[in-house]
């Protein structure tokens, strides 16, 4: 009798423990999947491929080769019930290999660095990204709409500034699938681009013609 009671207690304890771990795992994965979208206003129609091409300094397809790090910009202090709290906007530095230059001419022989607005928040709890934008994944191919900054670095920020592409390997070299519908829209947008009159900078990765 005493033995069966002991077994019963052990089974019950095991079930409680398993349940506790299941809840914990579920909670952790839900934090990892939490995405917070930044809302903004824009100088162009960010849903128009012609405007995206005309406003950007560089449009190209590239394979993401690595993540170089996270940077936290635009810090502000905000009061909360529990005291002052620092809020920042995350940016992610990616190393990429340009596959094809569509607008402008960036080096294709070596990896270059591009900064993307968005990334893991400073407290590590959520992923922050602009509405209708994606954070690139290593090994995948994307179209980048990039802006040269005054220091020659490259920045890609805002809705539709990074678009995932289907790719194929041709003669051992990665190529963008020509039939990819996004790629076609990007090319068409570039061919009919609406050029913006604004002060522009030059990328340190640009190749002189």
């Amino acid at each position, binding site marked *: 009798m005493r033995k069966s009671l002991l077994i019963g207690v052990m089974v019950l304890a095991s079930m409680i423990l398993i349940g506790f771990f299941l809840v914990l795992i579920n909670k952790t994965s839900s934090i990892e999947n939490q995405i*917070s979208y930044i*809302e903004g206003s*824009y100088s*162009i129609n960010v849903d128009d491929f012609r405007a995206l091409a005309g*406003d950007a300094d560089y449009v190209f397809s590239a394979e993401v080769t690595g993540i170089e790090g996270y940077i936290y910009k*635009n810090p502000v202090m905000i009061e909360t019930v529990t005291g002052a709290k620092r809020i920042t*906007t995350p940016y992610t530095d990616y190393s990429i290999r340009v596959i094809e230059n569509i607008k402008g001419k960036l080096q294709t022989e070596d990896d270059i660095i591009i900064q993307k607005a968005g990334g893991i928040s400073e407290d590590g709890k959520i992923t922050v990204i*602009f509405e209708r934008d994606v954070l690139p994944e290593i090994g995948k191919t994307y179209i980048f709409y990039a802006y040269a900054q005054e220091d020659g670095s490259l920045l890609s920020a805002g809705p539709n500034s990074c678009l995932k592409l289907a790719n194929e390997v041709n003669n051992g070299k990665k190529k963008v699938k020509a039939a990819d519908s996004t790629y076609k829209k990007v090319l068409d947008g570039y061919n009919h681009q609406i050029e913006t009159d604004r002060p522009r900078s030059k990328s340190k990765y640009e190749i002189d013609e």
Partner: protein
Amino acid sequence: MKNHMKVLCTLLGGALLACSMRVHASNVAIMSWSLLDSGKHLDWDGTSEYLSYFQSGVDTWNDYKPGVIRQDSWNTIEDVAISDYYEQNSVSGYTDKAGMICFNKYNMSRYSSAEKQHTCTHELGHALGLAHNQFGDIMYAELTYHTVLSENDKASYDASYNR
């Protein structure tokens, strides 16, 4: 004959009424979050080169719902902090649900007064929980010179405020 005319008039009247209702139906667009606190206030603090335009934006929303947006004081908890930054891209300003509104000096410095005011009013709209809407609205995503709340803006504000 008289009966036919009656039916025709009723049908015509109904069609006209349906048309006018369609014209006046507002497009409500709200986000899943807003920075309004539990007391339905948006208390802001911080600094910006565009403070006068920001204040005009505050007045625009407060003219519709008085007293909702307030400058943070010693007896309130700040809901949103405003600041400026500089980056070459197409972003005029952005709002983060963590509690910040940031204005991009690269674009803002080139805008007309109406465009600056539009951007400030637009970002406040996001802080109040409004999503992007149609051309002619403050909440249209692309830069315009509109500085007056449209029916869509008002209906969206009502929906966000009353949720």
